[in-house]
């Protein structure tokens, strides 16, 4: 782990764009009318922050962010929001003209995402090793398990407790009504 200060270069356009988008999505979370749209904007923010990590070269962090945050926690939020089906906040958006705009947005996103992945600068494994070893998966995991062994074990137990807790809470949710029908 070279302790030297890595000269952080100028911020490139990509980072700026993604940064701004992330902030916009964050504001979306706070100011959106319906809970669902705020949940979705949360998912968007998490996803965009993952791109910020990719831009910084911390691919492992980026993947973890996508996998856990965007892939699991955001899903959980959307799930719960839909489950609780909050009536008052659902507002319909009339009108057809948005279709073209939406189609354009979808494809634009498609191109951006794939292009981004293909840009060698970001994903060249060869390149990746040279410019920043500190944030590579191997370095992080090695550090994570050696110097932070105790917190690692503690978090393990924490998550176990969380799982047990959730099961207990979920179990108590079963109202007596459906118990009579023998539903699980």
């Amino acid at each position: 782990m070279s302790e030297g200060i890595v000269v952080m270069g100028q911020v490139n356009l990509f980072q700026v764009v993604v940064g701004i988008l992330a902030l916009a999505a964050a504001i979306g979370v706070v100011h959106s009318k319906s809970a669902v749209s705020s949940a979705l904007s949360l998912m968007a923010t998490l996803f965009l922050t993952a791109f910020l990590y990719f831009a910084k070269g911390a691919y492992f962090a980026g993947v973890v962010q996508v996998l856990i945050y965007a892939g699991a926690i955001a899903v959980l939020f959307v799930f719960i929001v839909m489950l609780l089906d909050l009536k008052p906040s659902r507002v319909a958006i009339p009108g057809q003209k948005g279709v073209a705009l939406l189609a354009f947005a979808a494809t634009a996103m498609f191109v951006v995402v794939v292009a981004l992945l293909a840009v060698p600068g970001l994903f060249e494994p060869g390149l990746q090793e040279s410019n920043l070893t500190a944030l590579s998966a191997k370095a992080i995991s090695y550090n994570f398990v050696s110097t932070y062994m105790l917190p690692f074990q503690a978090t393990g137990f924490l998550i176990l407790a969380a799982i047990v807790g959730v099961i207990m809470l979920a179990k108590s949710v079963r109202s007596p009504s459906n118990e009579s029908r023998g539903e699980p």
Partner: protein
Amino acid sequence: MTPLLWSLFLVPLVGVAVLTGVPVILMVERRGSAWLQRRTGPNRVGPFGLLQPMADAIKMVFKEENQPARASKFLFIFAPVLAILPPIVGFSMIPIAQPFTINGESFAVQIVKSDLSFLFLLAITSLHVFAVLIAGWASNNKFSLMGALRAGSQMISYEVAIGLCLVSLVVSYGTLNLSEIVTLQGAGSRLAFWGFFMQPLVFLIMWVSVFAECNRLPFDLPEGETELVAGYHTEYSGLKFGLFFLGEYAAMYLASALMATVFLGGYNIPFVSPDQLVSFVEGLGLYGDQATWVASALSAVSFAAKVFFFMFVFVWVRWTLPRFRYDQLVGLGWKVLLPLATINLIGTMIFSFLQKGAY
């Protein structure tokens, strides 16, 4: 021809390949299921009915798009896009063929050559859940919402099983980079035998959970016709339904590609190492770069064969097994697959610890 240009060129190539593959598998599904049930499939359109998928596509495009009242417009449109996105993006990680050289400089037939490709693949597939949830929510009817929630919970629980399988695979392969995994399974390499033989139990668990991920038959409760009409895409028609349809099949393609790369040795032809392949082609009279081109084409064909094998199994299973009840479905995921995967993980760790030098 720099690697950058080559990757950019590969992107549309892979996209088109996957999307054209869908009608092929559609045809196989229709004809295959007919053959399984001893009836002749659609053979009116074009010779032997080969143009049937074309007809479906045209129908899809021109069908009238209706929009459920008071459903949130943007989400309704956004869901199908999100459904098609993850599988295609996932394909960028898969090494499709043997690397070939152009005037000495070798090019890998893989869009993204990242060290974390396997993990990234899992991350991307986990985004598929969003499409289902948003579709269910946006179509503003009880059945589709129920279908979406069921599909969501099913996908999450099986994603956990796949995650654990991933961990034990990584322990046995020692790397997360898919191309390295494929070369490891090649004939001349350090390991030299397929993932299937190394981790049979993980193969089984992965196979079952992949079915669940793609909501394919034994696990297609969300679209269970009898209870939930068509699940989360009841309200969709026309192109949007087409996109969903495409997304589902693309996800199947991605799943079988993943299974092929990790378990059946990707583009390796059994018992033939990449250099032997090249020398075999040189034996046929081609030399230098052209030989590597042909060799990598051959390896691509072997990869396609393996993927097709898995696709056929998808179809085959769909028309033989009955549907699971919901609690059996989730129970299988949490109470059977997860413990098995954990035990296997512990076994692999102990084995690899004992074999310290081997991997």
